[in-house]
C-alpha cells in the first residue's frame, strides 16, 4: 500500500502525482493516436522520463501502448530504445538514485512483470530484439530481460526454454565485443541458470565454459574485478548438482584451465601493504568453491574420483598445497583452501600420498600435516580453521590404511625420535590438554586413524604414556578411561567415548584390555543408570550404554568378571532393559547427531555445535541394532526407534519380502513338479494293479466254467452213456486238477509280477510269497506321506505368500495416503493462489478508480479556479520543465 500513501500522503506529493497521472495519460494518448513517428517518439521519450518518478502511473497506463510500439515501430531503434528503458524503470526494484525520497516498492516490479509475461509472446518479442546489433536496442533488452528474470525467475525460465533458440541467443551475448553488454549478459545468464538443470546444460553446450574461462583470463583472473566474480558465480551455477555438466567440464579439459588461477605469487602480497584486496579474497573463495563443487563427497563417486585424478595430474593439487604453505594468505582463504585440499585428496590414494609428502618451508622443514595439526590443537587459531584442519586430516586417512598406519606409527615407542614433533605427539597432547575443543579434535582425529582397521586398533594398545615423575607409565586406553572418569567438559567426555567406542568395536583384545581394569564397567553402569537429564548428559549416557554394548558384542570371554553373559546380567539387573534401550535410542535422535550424519565436511559455525563426528555416526548406525539384540538376548528388539526407520527401511523390507516371495514361489514350483511326477507314478501303478486284477478275475471265471458240469440236455440215459459220461467226468476231473495246479502256479507268477505294485487294494491271498507285496505297501506309504508333507509345505508356502502380499498391500496403502495428503496440500496452495489473484484484481480496480478520481479532482479544482476560488497552485509549467530536465539526463 506504499504507493497509495505516496499518492495520497503529503499535499506536495498529491499535486505531483495528480499532474503526473494526468501527463502520463496525455502522453499515452499521444503515442497511440499520433500518426507521426517523430511525435510518437517524443511522447515515448517523455514517458521514459516520467517512468521512474511515476512508476505506478506509467506501469498501469502505458504498458499496452508501449508493447504496441515495440511491435509496430521496430524499425526505429530510438523509439524502441525509449520504450525498453521505460519498461525497465517500471519493472526495476532498484532504488533510483535521483529521488531516494520515495521508498521503492519492491512488489510493484513483480506485479508489472507478471502482467507483462502473461502473454509469453512479449518475451519472445524481446528475444528477437537481441538479434538487433544496435547498442541502443540490445543493451536495454538485456537489462529488461535481467530484471524480468529476477522478478519472476521460474516463469521466465520456462518461457525462454520453449522459445526456439531462446537460450542460445542469450548465450551469444557473451561474445559481444562491447564490454557493457557482455558484462550485463553475465548477470542475465546468472539469473537464467539459477536452479534450472536443463537450461544449465544448454548453456554449457553453447560453449559457456570456454567463454567464461576466457573472460576470467582477460579480466586478470583472481586479481580481476567484479566481472571475474560474476563469471565464477555463473560457473558455480552451471556445475553445482549437475553431474552431466560436471562430466562435460572434466571431459572438456577445463579443470586444467583452472589451474593457472591458483598460481599465487608472493609478489602480490608484498606489493600490497594491506594484504589481499577484498575482491581478490572473494574471487579466490569462489574459485576454491568451484573446485570443491567438482570433487564434493556428495557427487557420484566415480565422478569425484575422475576429477581428483585430473587435479593431481595437472598440478592443481600441488598449487593448492602451495597456497597452504604460502605467507600472507588471509585466514579465511586459507581455511577454504584447507577444505578444498581435503576434498581433492579424500579417498584418493595417489592424492593422499602426495599430500603426505608436502613439506612446510619451516626450519627444520616439517611435514605439512604436522604443521596443520599444530594449528588444530592450538586454542588461539580461528575455530573454522581448526575444523578445516580436522577435515583435511580425516580426508587424508579416509579409506587409506597406509596413511592410518603412518600416523599410529608415530605414537609407538620404536619410532620415537626425540627431536622432531610428530603427528602422534600432537594428537596425544591435544587429547589430554585443558581445551575441550582440542580434546575433541584430537580424539576424532585418532578415531579416524583406526577406523575400520583392526591392525591399527591393536597397535594403538601398545601406546604407553609417561605420567608424573616416579609413577609407572599408563596405557593410552586406560588414560582415556581415567580422563573420562574425572568428569570435565561434556565435549571432552563425548570425544573420549567416541574414540573408545571406535577403538573397542570389532577388536576383542581392546575390549579385554578395557575390561581388565575393574573400575571401567562400574563407571559406565553408574553413568547409564543416573537420571540426570541435561541435554548433553543424555548424550553421554547414551554413549556409555553404547560402549557397554560394544563390550558385550566383541567380548571373547577372557575377562572372568565381565564375560558376555555376566555383562548382560549386570545390564539387565542394574540398568534394566527398558532404560538401557531408551538411553541408547536417544543418541540417534539428537539433532546434532542428524546434522553430523549428513556429510563428512565439518560445517560448524560455532564451537558449541561440535558434538558428533560423521564417521562415528556411521559406526553407531551400524552397531546400534546389534547392541540392542545382544543386550536383550532375543532375536528381535521391541520398541526400536519409534517412527524412525523411514521409507528406506520399508523399501528394504519390501525388497526382502519380494525376494522371499520369489524364492518361495520357486520352491513351490519345484515341489509341485515333484508332487505331480509322483502322482503320475501312483496312477501308473494303479493302472497296472487294475490290469492284474482283471486278469485274475478272468482266470477265476475260466476256472468256474471249467469246474461246472455240462448242462444236462441229453437224458436218453443208457448205462453206457452214463459210464462214458462218468469216464469223461473223471478225465475232466483230472483235467480240472491239472488246471488247478496250473492256475496255482500262474497265480504265484502273477504275484511275482505284482512285486512292483503298490496299490493297497490288491488283496489276492493266492500268492505264496507275501514279502514283495509288503515292501510294495511300504513304498506306497512312503510316497503317500511324501505327498502329504509336500501338500502341507505347499499350503504353508501359500500362507506366507498371502502374508507377504498383505504386507505389500499395506505399504501401497500407506503410499496412497501420503499421495492424497500431497494432493490436498497442492489444492490448498492453488486456493491460496486464487485468493491472492482476486485480491490483486481488486487492487487493480482500486488503482483505476483512484486514477479516475484524480482526474475528477483536477477538473473540479480547475472549475473552482475558474470560479475565482483560491486553490493551491499546480504549476503545470514547472512540471513540464522537470520533464525536460529528466529527459536530458537520460537521453544519452
Amino acid at each position: 500500500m506504499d504507493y497509495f500513501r505516496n499518492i495520497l500522503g503529503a499535499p506536495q506529493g498529491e499535486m505531483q502525482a495528480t499532474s503526473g497521472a494526468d501527463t502520463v495519460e496525455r502522453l499515452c494518448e499521444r503515442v497511440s493516436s499520433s500518426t507521426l513517428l517523430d511525435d510518437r517518439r517524443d511522447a515515448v521519450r517523455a514517458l521514459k522520463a516520467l517512468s521512474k518518478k511515476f512508476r505506478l502511473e506509467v506501469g498501469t497506463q502505458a504498458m499496452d501502448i508501449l508493447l504496441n510500439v515495440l511491435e509496430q515501430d521496430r524499425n526505429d531503434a530510438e523509439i524502441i530504445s525509449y520504450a525498453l528503458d521505460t519498461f525497465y524503470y517500471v519493472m526495476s526494484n532498484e532504488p533510483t538514485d535521483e529521488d531516494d525520497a520515495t521508498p521503492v516498492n519492491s512488489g510493484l516490479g513483480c506485479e508489472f512483470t507478471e502482467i507483462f509475461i502473461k502473454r509469453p509472446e512479449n518475451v519472445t518479442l524481446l528475444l528477437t530484439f537481441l538479434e538487433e546489433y544496435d547498442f541502443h536496442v540490445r543493451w536495454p533488452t538485456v537489462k529488461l530481460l535481467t530484471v524480468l528474470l529476477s522478478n519472476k525467475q521460474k516463469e521466465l525460465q520456462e518461457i525462454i526454454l520453449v522459445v526456439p533458440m531462446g537460450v542460445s541467443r542469450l548465450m551469444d551475448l557473451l561474445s559481444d565485443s562491447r564490454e557493457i553488454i557482455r558484462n550485463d549478459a553475465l548477470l542475465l545468464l546468472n539469473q537464467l541458470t539459477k536452479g534450472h538443470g536443463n537450461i544449465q546444460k544448454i548453456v554449457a553446450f553453447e560453449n559457456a565454459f570456454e567463454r567464461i574461462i576466457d573472460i576470467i583470463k582477460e579480466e586478470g583472473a583472481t586479481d580481476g574485478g567484479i566481472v571475474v566474480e560474476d563469471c565464477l558465480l555463473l560457473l558455480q551455477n552451471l556445475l553445482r548438482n549437475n553431474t552431466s555438466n560436471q562430466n562435460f567440464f572434466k571431459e572438456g579439459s577445463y579443470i586444467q584451465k583452472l589451474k593457472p588461477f591458483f598460481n599465487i605469487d608472493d609478489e602480490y602480497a608484498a606489493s600490497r601493504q594491506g594484504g589481499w584486496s577484498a575482491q581478490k579474497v572473494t574471487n579466490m573463495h569462489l574459485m576454491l568453491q568451484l573446485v570443491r563443487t567438482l570433487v564434493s563427497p556428495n557427487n557420484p563417486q566415480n565422478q569425484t574420483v575422475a576429477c581428483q585424478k585430473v587435479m593431481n595430474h595437472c598440478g592443481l593439487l600441488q598449487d593448492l598445497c602451495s597456497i597452504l604453505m604460502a605467507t600472507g594468505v588471509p585466514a579465511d582463504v586459507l581455511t577454504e583452501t584447507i577444505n578444498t585440499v581435503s576434498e581433492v585428496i579424500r579417498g584418493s590414494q595417489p592424492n593422499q600420498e602426495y599430500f603426505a609428502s608436502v613439506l612446510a618451508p619451516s626450519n627444520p622443514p616439517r611435514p605439512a600435516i604436522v604443521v596443520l595439526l599444530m594449528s588444530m590443537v592450538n586454542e588461539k587459531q580461528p575455530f573454522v580453521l581448526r575444523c578445516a584442519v580436522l577435515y583435511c586430516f580425516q580426508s587424508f586417512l579416509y579409506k587409506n590404511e597406509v596413511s592410518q598406519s603412518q600416523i599410529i606409527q608415530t605414537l609407538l615407542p620404536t619410532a620415537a625420535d626425540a627431536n622432531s614433533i610428530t603427528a602422534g605427539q600432537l594428537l596425544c597432547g591435544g587429547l589430554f590438554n585443558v581445551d575441550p575443543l582440542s580434546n575433541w579434535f584430537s580424539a576424532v582425529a585418532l578415531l579416524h586413524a583406526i577406523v575400520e582397521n583392526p591392525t591399527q586398533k591393536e597397535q594403538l594398545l601398545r601406546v604407553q604414556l609417561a605420567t608424573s615423575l616416579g609413577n609407572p607409565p599408563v596405557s593410552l586406553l586406560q588414560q582415556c578411561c581415567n580422563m573420562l572418569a574425572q568428569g570435565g567438559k561434556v565435549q571432552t567426555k563425548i570425544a573420549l567415548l567416541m574414540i573408545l567406542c571406535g577403538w573397542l568395536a570389532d577388536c576383542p583384545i581392546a575390549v579385554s584390555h578395557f575390561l581388565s581394569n575393574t573400575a571401567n564397567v562400574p563407571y559406565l553402569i553408574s553413568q547409564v543408570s543416573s537420571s540426570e537429564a541435561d541435554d548433553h548428559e543424555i548424550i553421554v549416557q547414551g554413549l556409555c550404554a553404547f560402549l557397554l554394548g560394544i563390550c558385550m558384542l566383541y567380548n571373547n570371554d577372557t575377562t572372568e568378571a565381565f564375560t558376555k553373559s555376566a555383562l548382560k546380567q549386570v545390564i539387565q539387573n542394574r540398568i534394566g532393559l527398558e532404560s538401557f534401550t531408551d538411553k541408547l535410542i536417544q543418541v540417534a535422535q539428537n539433532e546434532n547427531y542428524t546434522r553430523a550424519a549428513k556429510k563428512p565436511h565439518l560445517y560448524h559455525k560455532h564451537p558449541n555445535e561440535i558434538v558428533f563426528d560423521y564417521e562415528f555416526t556411521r559406526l553407531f548406525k551400524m552397531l546400534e541394532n546389534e547392541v540392542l539384540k545382544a543386550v536383550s538376548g532375543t532375536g528381535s528388539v521391541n520398541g526400536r526407534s519409534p517412527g524412525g526407520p523411514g521409507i528406506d527401511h520399508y523399501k528394504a523390507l519390501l525388497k526382502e519380502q519380494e525376494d522371499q516371495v520369489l524364492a518361495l514361489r520357486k520352491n513351490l514350483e519345484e515341489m509341485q513338479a515333484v508332487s505331480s511326477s509322483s502322482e503320475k507314478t501312483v496312477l501308473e501303478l494303479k493302472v497296472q494293479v487294475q490290469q492284474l486284477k482283471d486278469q485274475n478275475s478272468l482266470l477265476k471265471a475260466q476256472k468256474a466254467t471249467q469246474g461246472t458240469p455240462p448242462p444236462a440236455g441229453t437224458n436218453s440215459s443208457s448205462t453206457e452213456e452214463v459210464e462214458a459220461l462218468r469216464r469223461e467226468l473223471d478225465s475232466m476231473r483230472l483235467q480240472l486238477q491239472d488246471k488247478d495246479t496250473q492256475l496255482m502256479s500262474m497265480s504265484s507268477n502273477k504275484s511275482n509280477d505284482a512285486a512292483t505294485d503298490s496299490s493297497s487294494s490288491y488283496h489276492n491271498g493266492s500268492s505264496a510269497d507275501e514279502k514283495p507285496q509288503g515292501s510294495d505297501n511300504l513304498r506306497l506309504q512312503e510316497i503317500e506321506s511324501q505327498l502329504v508333507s509336500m501338500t502341507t509345505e505347499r499350503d504353508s508356502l501359500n500362507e506366507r505368500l498371502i502374508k507377504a502380499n498383505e504386507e505389500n498391500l499395506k505399504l501401497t496403502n500407506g503410499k496412497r495416503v501420503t499421495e492424497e495428503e500431497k494432493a490436498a496440500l497442492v489444492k490448498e496452495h492453488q486456493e491460496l493462489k486464487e485468493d491472492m489473484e482476486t485480491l490483486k484484481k481488486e487492487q487493480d480496480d482500486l488503482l483505476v478508480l483512484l486514477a479516475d478520481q484524480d482526474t475528477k479532482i483536477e477538473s473540479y479544482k480547475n472549475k473552482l479556479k475558474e470560479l475565482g476560488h483560491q486553490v493551491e497552485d499546480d504549476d503545470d509549467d514547472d512540471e513540464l520543465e522537470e520533464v525536460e530536465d529528466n529527459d536530458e539526463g537520460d537521453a544519452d
Partner: protein
Amino acid sequence: MSYAYLFKYIIIGDTGVGKSCLLLQFTDKRFQPVHDLTIGVEFGARMITIDGKQIKLQIWDTAGQESFRSITRSYYRGAAGALLVYDITRRDTFNHLTTWLEDARQHSNSNMVIMLIGNKSDLEARREVKKEEGEAFAREHGLIFMETSAKTAANVEEAFINTAKEIYQKIQDGVFDINNEANGIKIGPQHSPANQSLNVGGSGGNQGGNCC
C-alpha cells in the same frame, strides 16, 4: 589427452529406441536392460582415432519424449553430427523419421552429418522394419545408414566412428568452416603437424576406454 579435433554429436529419435543404450555401450561398453527414461539431455564423451589422429567425441544424448522437444531442439545448432535412431522392432519409430529429419534440418547447420541407425538388430524375430527399408530411406534423404545392437554391441563402434569419418572427410574437403565453433567442431589445443607423427599407425588401436 590432447586431440586433433573435437566433434560434437547429438543422438535423436523416438523414446525407447535405445539412444541412451547406444551411448552407454560406446562410452562404457555396458548394456542397460531397463529403460531409464532420459530427462532432458545427458552428456558422454570418448576419444577415437581416425587416420592416425586423435578425435574427441562429445555426445549429447537427448530425451525422445515429446514433452522434452523444446529442450532438445536447442542442441541441434552447434552439433557436427547426429545419430538419428529408430527401433527395427517398432514400425512407428521408423514412420516418425520424416518428422525428426525435418526438425533436424530446420534447426541445425546445413553441413551436419546425419547417420540413420536401425537399432536392436539382435531382435531379428520381432523385426518390423526390413533392412532394405532403412537403406532406401537413407539413400532418399542423403544419410549414412547402419543397423546396430546396443545389446550385443554389433556395429555400435562403427556407427560413431563412421559418422566421425564423414565429418573428417568434409573437413578435408573444406566444406566445414572449422574456425566457427558453432558448427560443433573444434581444433585441438596442441594440434600442430609436429605432433602427428606420434599417432601414425595408431588407427583403430587404442580406441575405447576412458579418454584421460
